[in-house]
């Protein structure tokens, strides 16, 4: 095995541990404290936000415009249409403004 393969193998094992680990730890407890349950309920918004906010904070007008379009379209049409509208808006804004 080359060094590349060792890196891939190591990355794969550690990644799997993150995906199974959270459950393995929590499943040792029979009952969840209400605060733990509240924390888990917040996980989707908390983590997914970190995948958007820094990118938006360091983005230019075309990207921010595309996010605004996607956000507005979401209110009315939901996830898929909002994503497509944001993608079209981004290509458009970058062509016009970039």
């Amino acid at each position, binding site marked *: 095995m080359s060094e590349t*393969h060792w*890196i*891939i193998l*190591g*990355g794969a094992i*550690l*990644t*799997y541990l*993150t*995906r*199974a*680990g*959270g*459950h*393995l*730890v*929590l*499943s040792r407890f029979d009952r*969840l404290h209400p*605060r*733990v*349950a*509240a*924390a*888990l*309920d*917040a*996980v*989707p*918004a*908390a*983590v*997914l*936000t*970190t*995948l958007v*906010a*820094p*990118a*938006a*904070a360091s*983005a230019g007008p075309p*990207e921010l415009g*595309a996010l605004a379009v*996607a*956000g507005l379209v*979401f209110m*009315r*049409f*939901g*996830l*898929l249409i*909002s*994503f497509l509208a*944001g*993608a079209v808006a*981004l*290509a458009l804004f*970058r*062509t016009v403004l970039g």
Partner: protein
Amino acid sequence: MASPAAPSGAISLSNPGLAAGMRTSLPVIVAVLPFGLLYGALAAQQGLSPFDAALMSATIFGGASQMVGIELFGKQISPWWIVLSIFAVNFRHVLYSATLGRRIRHWPAGQKALGFFFLTDAQFAEAERLAEAGKPVGFAWYMGLSLPIYLTWVAESYLGAAFGKLIGDTHAIGIDFLLPIYFLGLVMEFHKRPLWLPVVAASAAASILAYWTVGSPWHVSLGALAGVALAAAMPPKPITSEPPVGGDVP
């Protein structure tokens, strides 16, 4: 047992099943499509063969961490540091795993072990949406969602590495910013959850601050911890809201 026809451990076909999962995978595949090709092309630039690029996708199955990993390939960086970087990018999955675990308690251990391998951002978000709609997260549905995404991701990695030079100006068509747009939609999907706005605000502020000070990829874990800690610190409320019924995509 009265019914010998029902084999134990068979995939439960409870509603929603395999087909519903596969339908749910479609927008995810559209959003992820450019990235598989882009990843493959970048991997080839860093000297990975198409086979190795696809191998990395098949075993790690985490786009952002793979991008960071190949970024470090070929530089004078210790292999251990590359592995650690991949781990750091993927550390958020610990939270996904703990949260999803509540939804799949009824799965046999083998199904859980397999299911966690496929636990990426999209799978997690879609499973939480399904649970929020008051529906069971079944193994068949989950695999119907995961396998098309997985196979597309692996195949594209190979194709991107083999034909990457054919990809044109990725900036002009906006490939580099498609995922934030998609993730914004996913964030908004959870706007009915308690404390949604304070959690989003705390995570946004903390992740931006961490991005500027500590640097990537730690801003993901630090930002997420801020939002989760806020939710844990607020006074717990009894659950009174009834789950919305039916499909929530207008």
